[in-house]
C-alpha cells in the first residue's frame, strides 16, 4: 500500500503566541507536527508496516519546516516531499497536495481532521474533490483489507461505520492510533532519509485574512461574600452594568 500523510507545521499547542502589529509573532515559538496529523501518521505507520508498503509525508512550507518533516521521518515515514511555498490558504495547500497525488497515485491520503493553528478543516475535502475520490472525516478508526477501507466516524449522538474503496482521503483524529514517540534509532536514521523539495504549482489562493483580533483580556475577578447580596446587586448594576 502506498500512503501519503500530509502534515502541517504548527506552533506547539502549549506555546503562547504574542501578536505584534496585528500579526501573530512567531519568532521563538516551538513548532510541532499538527496534533491531528500526528494521529494520522501513527496509523499510517502501522498500516505501512502491516502491508509492507511505502509511506511518504508531505508538507507545504518553507525550509523552516524541515525539522518538523524530519520528525515525521523519525517516527517512521520512508521519505518526504516538501512543496516549497508558504501555505496561504486551504485551497492553495489542497491544490499542491492534489498535484503531487495525481502524479503518484496513492492508495490512502491521510491528514488530521484540522490543523491546530487555523483550524480550517477543509484541506482533505478539497484534495478529494480535486482528485475526484471520496473523503471521510473525522475518521476515528481505520482498517484496510482487500482494497477497501472501513472507518468509524463519530456523528451527532452516535457512531457511524463507513466503507469505501481505495483510493481515498481521510481527515483523522484520535483514537485512530496512539501517537508515537520516535525512537532513538528512528531519529538517527531520519537525516539519511530522502526529503525531496519541489516547487509549487501556480494557483492563486481563494481567500485572504484581512484582520486578526485578540480577545480582550479578562477583567479582574471580584469576590463578594455570599451573604452580601446587596453589594452584589449594586456592583452588577454600577460596575458590570449587566442589570
Amino acid at each position: 500500500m502506498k500512503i501519503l500523510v500530509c502534515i502541517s507545521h504548527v506552533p506547539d499547542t502549549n506555546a503562547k503566541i504574542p501578536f505584534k502589529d496585528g500579526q501573530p509573532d512567531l519568532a521563538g515559538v516551538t513548532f510541532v507536527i499538527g496534533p491531528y496529523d500526528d494521529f494520522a501518521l501513527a496509523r499510517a505507520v502501522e498500516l505501512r508496516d502491516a502491508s509492507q508498503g511505502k509511506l511518504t509525508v508531505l508538507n507545504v512550507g518553507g525550509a523552516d519546516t524541515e525539522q518538523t518533516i524530519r520528525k515525521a521521518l523519525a517516527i517512521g515515514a520512508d521519505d518526504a516531499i516538501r512543496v516549497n511555498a508558504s501555505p496561504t490558504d486551504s485551497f492553495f495547500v489542497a491544490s499542491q497536495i492534489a498535484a503531487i497525488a495525481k502524479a503518484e497515485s496513492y492508495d490512502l491520503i491521510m491528514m488530521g481532521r484540522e490543523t491546530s493553528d487555523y483550524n480550517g478543516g477543509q484541506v482533505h475535502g478539497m484534495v478529494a474533490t480535486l482528485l475526484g475520490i471520496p473523503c471521510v472525516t473525522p475518521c476515528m478508526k481505520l482498517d484496510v483489507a482487500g482494497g477497501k477501507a472501513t472507518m468509524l466516524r463519530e456523528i451527532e449522538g452516535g457512531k457511524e461505520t463507513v466503507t469505501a474503496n481505495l483510493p481515498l482521503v481521510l481527515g483523522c483524529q484520535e483514537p485512530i492510533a496512539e501517537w508515537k514517540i520516535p525512537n532513538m534509532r528512528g531519529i538517527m536514521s531520519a537525516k539519511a532519509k530522502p526529503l525531496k523539495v519541489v516547487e509549487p504549482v501556480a494557483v492563486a489562493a481563494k481567500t485572504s485574512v484581512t484582520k486578526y483580533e485578540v480577545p480582550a483580556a479578562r477583567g479582574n475577578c471580584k469576590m463578594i461574600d455570599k451573604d452580601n447580596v446587596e453589594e452584589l446587586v449594586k456592583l452588577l448594576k454600577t460596575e458590570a452594568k449587566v442589570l
Partner: protein
Amino acid sequence: MVAVSNQNAIKGGEFLIRETEAHEIFIPEDFTAEQRMMAQACEDFLNTEIHPKVEEMDNMKNTEFMHKAMQKAGELGLLGITVPEEYSGLNMSFNTSMLIADVLGSGGSFSTAYGAHTGIGTQPIVLYGNEEQKKKYVPKLATGEWLACYCLTEPDAGSDANSGKTKAVLSADGKYYTITGQKMWISNAGFAELFIVFAKIEDDKNLTAFIVEKSFGGITMNEEEKKLGIKGSSTRQVFFNDCKVPVENMLSTRGNGFKIAVNVLNIGRIKLGAGVIGGCKMVTSQALTYSKERKQFKTPIANFGAIKRKLAEMATKIYATESLCYRAGQNIEDNINSLAANGMSDAESKLKGVEQFAVECAIAKVHGSETLDFTVDEGVQIYGGMGFSEEAPMARAYRDARISRIYEGTNEINRMLLVGTIIKRALKGELDIITPAMAVAKELTSVPSFESIDASLLFAEEKSVIKNMKKAILMVAGKAVQNLGEKINDEQEIMMNIADMIIETYAAESVLLRTEKMVGVKGEKACEQQINMSKLYVSEALEKLGTAGKEAVASFTQGDEQKVMLMGLKRYTKLTPVNTKELRRAVADAMIEEGKYCF
C-alpha cells in the same frame, strides 16, 4: 597504549591554571536539531509513561511497573545510548548521553532505575568485558530484554568499598567460582536478571568483578527497603549463598574490580550531574506556576521580592550546573575521540577519556546534587504548607532529591577525591600547579598591580575575578600542601574548603564562558538574563570562595604568614558591589513572564 598526540588538548583539572576561551567550550545551545529531537522524545516518554503514573510507580503495589517502564524505554532505544552498535546499541556521543540523562533525570524513581541499569549495570561489561562476554550480555541489556544491577556496597563496606567481605572461591576443578556474601542497597535488584558482583579472591588486596546471571542460583533477597525517597525504585539486600559462577564470567582480571568500580563511577558521577538538570527545571517551573497562582495579601506571591529571590537563585544555580556539565562532557568527548583516533580501542578510549576528567566528574556530581537539593528545598518553601503536603508535587521531589548527595560516592568522598586527585597529579608532574602557585606566592609579597579594567567590555571585571579566584586557590592549596605535606589528607576540613573553592571557580568560569559564547551568537540583548545570572553567579561564587579560603587559612597558618595570606585573599576576592537584588528580580520576572524556567 597510545599517548595523546595533541599537546594542546585540554587536560582534566587544568582549568585551574589555564585560561579558557569561550569558543573552546561546548554549551547546551550548541546541541543540534537531531539531539533536541532526542531530548524531546525522552520528555514525551516521561510525559506519557512516568509522570502521569508517578503514584503507581512509587507505591510499588504493582511490582511489574518499573520493569515494564524500563522495557518501554528499551523499545525507544534509551537503554542502548552509549552501547556500541555491534552490541545492539546506538553508540551516541558522550554529550548526547549527558543530554538524555539530563532530560530523563526528572523521572524520580525511574531515573534511578534507568541510571543503575544503563550506567553501573551495563557499563562494566561494555568497558571491561571480553568479546564473548560483550556479545553474550550487552545486546540483552541494550534492548531491555534483561535488566542489570551492580552489587558493590555491603553492610560494612560503603564509602570504603574495597573493604568488602564477599568471597569468591575457585572450585577444585578450576571451572567456577563460588560467591558467598551479602550486598546492600542494590538498585534494581528486585527485577534484575544480571548482577555485576564485586568479591575478593583469597586474601587479595583488591576486589574482583564477576558477571552473575540470576539463573546461576544461590541468590536470595530481603524485602524492598523502606526508603525516604525514590520509593518506586527497587532497592534490596542481596545474599549470595554458594552462587556458582563459571570462571569465564570473571570481568577483566583478578584484582581489577576496584578499578572497574572507580572508573564506572567516574562516568556515573558526571551523568548524575547532568541527571539532576531536568528535575531541577521541572521543580522550578512548578514552583513558578504555583507562585503565580497562589495569592496572599491580595497579591500573587510571585510578586514578592522574597519569592523572586528564590526563583532567581534556583535558576542561576541550574544554569551553572548545566554550563559546567556540558563543558566537561564535551572535554571528555573530545578526549575520547582523540584517543580513539590514535588507535586506542573503543572501551579503552572511553575509560581513559573519562578518567582524565575525574576532577570535573566529581565537581559535576557535587554541584549538581547540591543544586537539586537547593532547588527542591526552595520549591517546598515557595509552596508553603502545600509544600509539606503529599497532595502537591514538592514533597515527593524533596524526598527523591536527597539520594543524589549519597550515592555514586557521597559528596564528602567526592570533595576529598577531587582535591586529592589534583594534588596527586601535581606531585606526579602531570599537572603543573607548582609553577603558577609559586608565581602567586611571589605576587603576594609584591606591590599589587592595579590593572585597569575596560568596563565597557562584557564581563571585563568578572573575567579578572575568575583569574583571581584561581590565584586564591593556588595560594591556599599551595600553602596547605607546603605546610602540611602528606598530612593534608587527614585534614579533611581543609580539603573540603579547597574543594568548595575549586567547585565554585569551575562553575563560575563555565557560566561566564557559556554566556559569552551565547552573546557572540545571539547578541547581548537576547541574552540579558543569562548575563544577569552570570553576574549573580560570579559574585556569589566569589563570596563562597572567600569564606572557604578564610576558614582554611585560619586553620593552618599563624602570625605573619596568616596575615599575608588573608591579605592575599582580600586582594583576590575584590569585586565592585553588585546589585544582586535588581539582577535577581530581572531573572525572576523573565521567568514569571514566560511561565517556566526558560534559559
